[in-house]
């Protein structure tokens, strides 16, 4: 006769357990951790380069980079003065918590105020995996089109902060910024919205102030 085994376990329980361990570690180290998620080419690395320049001397930071291939992003961030470790996923479309734990061991960063995790460029899969971060940050560049929050709702619903990037291009593209911000707020009424241009520096102060304020709150 067949018999039934009661399981009642989250399918992502293993990842969630690793993420909780990371979260405790980051709490102990008083490190603010952000998980940056966006489509490829929306400006995650460029925002981090601008952030490194603006935060130099005000806060310590390090970066874990996730990409399918190449060390290009980690090299760019090291050139910008940040310790950076590159995870190569070899084709996988997201990072999981175990990869972050292994990366931290391999990278052996000094204790930092801010740890940025730049996820694989993808608006879908990274959304599901908790990496022990304090909050997720969604980026959307104005060249991507005004319909993206409603087309990829999960990330905008789950990200505490949405950064609209490349706003210096607004005169050249059709992008209804207020409509996009309304979309994001309808998916996540408590979202913080920022507008940045890494090219001109617009909005970078507000972004850095938010990070510093949250990092200070975590240290307190």
């Amino acid at each position, binding site marked *: 006769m*067949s*018999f039934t*085994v009661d399981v*009642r*376990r989250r399918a992502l329980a293993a990842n969630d357990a690793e993420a909780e361990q990371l979260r405790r570690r980051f709490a102990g180290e008083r490190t603010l951790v952000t998980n940056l998620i966006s489509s490829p080419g929306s400006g995650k690395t460029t925002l981090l380069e601008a952030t490194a320049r603006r935060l130099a001397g005000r806060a310590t930071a390090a970066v874990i980079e996730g990409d399918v291939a190449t060390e290009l992003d980690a090299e760019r961030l090291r050139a910008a003065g940040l310790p950076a470790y590159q995870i190569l996923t070899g084709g996988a479309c997201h990072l999981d918590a175990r990869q972050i734990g292994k990366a931290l061991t391999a990278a052996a960063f000094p204790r930092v105020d801010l740890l940025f995790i730049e996820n694989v460029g993808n608006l879908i899969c990274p959304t599901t995996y908790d990496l022990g971060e304090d909050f997720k940050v969604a980026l959307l560049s104005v060249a991507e089109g005004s319909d993206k929050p409603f087309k990829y*709702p999960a990330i905008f619903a789950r990200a505490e902060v949405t950064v609209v990037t490349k706003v210096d291009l607004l005169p050249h593209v059709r992008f209804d910024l207020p409509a996009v911000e309304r979309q994001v707020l309808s998916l996540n*009424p408590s979202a913080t919205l920022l507008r940045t241009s890494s090219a001109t520096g617009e909005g970078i102060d507000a972004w850095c102030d938010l990070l510093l304020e949250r990092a200070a709150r975590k240290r307190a």
Partner: protein
Amino acid sequence: MRAHAPARLARAKVAVGELSAVEPDLLSFAWEAIVGEGPDQGAALEIDWRPGRQYCPTCRADKRQGEGSWMRICLDCGAPLQIEGGTELDVIEIELVPAGEENPG
């Protein structure tokens, strides 16, 4: 200790919430591919679809907004909705057939 004896998987039941970002049809397709022609060939995947509850505290009413909707504001009054459930992606139970025994039914 019985669960550790050699057994074949007959059925797995999973709960999938409408806000879990998991599509039941794709999950079923993946299940068929994994079970394939291996030792658990023919094992059934039972999906327990779990809608979320969208409640408007201002209107004091449920505001169902359509299957799989991620909308978090009330379309009548604009207030943030309270969302309960719908995020499940849980293995509920598995049914096993001890090695050498027929699958009932």
